[in-house]
């Protein structure tokens, strides 16, 4: 039987197809804008201008991108082992506990560079902890990880409401949030990075955790393609039978990968808590865990794809705010639609345009081969 999804050249597989899927997602989003009675081209202009028009805007865009790199990596790591972690949202939420504890403990007595490493460890620890249970349940009890992680998102939400309204809230305060951190709990901005390019960061909370995110992306690449453990998890992701044959423990990989995934999700909490709000608030994750699914799908689970995909979503978030300002009919919920459409077209419908593209490429290749068969590099 001929393969319905015939092999495409790398540039088409990793460049053209995601691009087409993305364009279609945006076209459909444009339809929604039309339905609302606004001009989609205007919206696009405001979005791009709002995301990149000024140094400050770029700062915001990259601030959001930082968050999405973490959650995108979280989802992608699990994908490579054949696991679908929908729980990044909850893991990031719980990861906040680690950040908050480190800050509340040391912010008044230690500088940020002492608190930050502890907060990293804390966020990764709590995120990993929250992913450990679904991982363990999958590995030892065969509970479907998609369902358990969904359930754990809701449980996380209840846990955090409880903690923020009863435990972590300062005495006498009504708002469900921790106290504001002193200087030790505030991360330095990356204003110098933008000023290299002659831009002014303004009020944008673009901070040092962006560099941590890039480091994490590199670390994930090394982990997946350059370590023994990465080899083992990819083997399991592609072929559980081969993993068993090679003496790779499925349970061990599942649990460790889930914890890694949870740790990456948890580290997302550093960015909003220590980088922007300087306190832990209710619902600070704001769906970033779910954006991670879209980012991982867009980026084909490869760090080199995840970073641009995260920036794209950063653009949507920042530019979306600008659209909302300029076009009151279009609130920031537009981003949620686009996010859903990207997940739909880059994820569930990823193969929709593939047959047409491979036909097109095959035709082009045969016609370009015909006149000059010697020279063609294809």
């Amino acid at each position: 039987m001929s393969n319905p999804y015939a092999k495409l050249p790398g540039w088409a597989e990793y460049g053209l197809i995601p691009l087409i899927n993305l364009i279609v997602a945006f076209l459909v989003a444009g339809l929604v804008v039309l339905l609302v009675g606004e001009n989609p081209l205007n919206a696009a202009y405001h979005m791009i201008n709002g995301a990149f028009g000024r140094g400050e805007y770029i700062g915001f865009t990259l601030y959001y991108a930082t968050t999405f790199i973490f959650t995108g990596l979280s989802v992608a790591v699990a994908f490579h082992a054949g696991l679908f972690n929908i729980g990044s949202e909850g893991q990031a939420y719980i990861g906040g506990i680690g950040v908050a504890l480190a800050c509340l403990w040391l912010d008044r007595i230690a500088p940020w560079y002492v608190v930050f490493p502890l907060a990293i460890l804390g966020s990764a620890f709590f995120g990993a902890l929250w992913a450990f249970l679904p991982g363990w349940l999958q590995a030892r009890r065969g509970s479907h990880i998609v369902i358990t992680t969904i359930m754990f998102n809701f449980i996380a939400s209840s846990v955090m409401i409880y903690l923020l309204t009863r435990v972590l809230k300062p005495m006498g305060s009504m708002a469900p949030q921790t106290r504001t951190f002193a200087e030790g709990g505030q991360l330095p901005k990356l204003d110098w990075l933008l000023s290299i390019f002659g831009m002014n960061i303004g009020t944008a909370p673009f901070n040092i955790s962006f560099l941590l995110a890039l480091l994490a992306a590199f670390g994930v690449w090394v982990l997946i393609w350059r370590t023994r453990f990465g080899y083992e998890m990819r083997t399991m992701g592609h072929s559980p039978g081969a993993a068993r044959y090679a003496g790779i423990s499925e349970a061990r990989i599942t649990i460790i990968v889930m914890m890694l995934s949870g740790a990456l999700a948890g580290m997302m909490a550093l960015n909003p808590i220590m980088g922007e709000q300087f306190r832990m608030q209710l619902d600070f994750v704001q769906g970033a865990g779910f954006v991670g699914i879209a980012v991982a799908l867009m980026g084909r689970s490869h760090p080199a794809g995840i970073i641009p995909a995260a920036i794209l979503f950063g653009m949507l978030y920042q530019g979306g705010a600008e659209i909302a300002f300029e076009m009151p009919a279009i609130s920031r919920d537009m981003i949620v639609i686009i996010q859903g459409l990207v997940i739909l077209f880059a994820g569930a419908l990823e193969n929709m345009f593939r047959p047409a593209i491979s036909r097109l490429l095959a035709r082009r290749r045969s016609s370009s081969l015909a006149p000059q068969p010697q020279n063609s590099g294809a």
Partner: protein
Amino acid sequence: MDLYHTLIVLLESTIRVSVPLILAALAGLFTERAGVFDIGLEGKMLGAAFAAGAVAGVTQSAFLGLGAGVLVSIALSLVHGYASITQRGNQIVSGVAINFVVAGATVILGEAWFRQGGRTPALSETGRFQVINLPFADAVREVPILGPIYSNILSGQFALTYLAFAMVPFSWWVLYRTRFGLRLRAVGENPAAVDTAGISVIWLRYRAVICCGILCGLAGAYLSLAMTAGFVKGMTAGKGYIALAALIFAKWRPVPVMFACLLFGFLDAFAIRMQGTPLPVIGQVPVQLMQALPYILTVILLAGFIGKATPPKAGGIPYVKER
């Protein structure tokens, strides 16, 4: 007598909150037994609630609203069907996508069309469903014990409530006593067997997905036309996921689905009712624990500590004819 009164009130609200759960969980039952996993129940319900609220708000006709809700929900189901049946995409991913698209679109469109902060226009008497009072409901209210049960629980419910409970045996009958049900269950277990028996796997699964759309549509319309008078943004508030949990908790069987939904509905009603009130023996229970309990119970079930939940064998796997 006071305790009894509290109990009656509690049961009354249990039923109110259980109805959308039952309808949505039965919706999930139809697709998942056919081998199409659906975590997009939430989105379909929300989309239906919005469409129902919007159309009823404009026309002030509850029935037109209901129709619109069902249609939108079916349309969303067909998107899920197209992605997971025709395009053989990942069913989880497709469900997640639909949830997001709907969550965003209902707010954007609602705000654009009605400018009431994501609400649809308030509904008049004709625009929403009215409760149905059974004969003598008022007369027997004072009869001890049985009186309140009749007047407050059996009587005074919405037509959709009676329909939801009637759907439980009806779904059972369809699944286990009709040709369609036999084939639907077969395609969720072994689609190749269905295919070689000369039945179209694709069409069968599409029909299951449409059934899911209809029921989700009813669930959504109930939210915006019966339970409240109009649509409020994000009004499903995770009910689709609770329904999914109930479906798993019930091990994909219709009658247990109803009991699981009633249990989860009861926990919800109980949490609201008992907020801040200390319970005997255990003392004060945080409301968050009560709210998380359905999810915790489902996880415990999934862990195999209380029975084993085995999903339909072909669930989540797109059918590829192979030889």
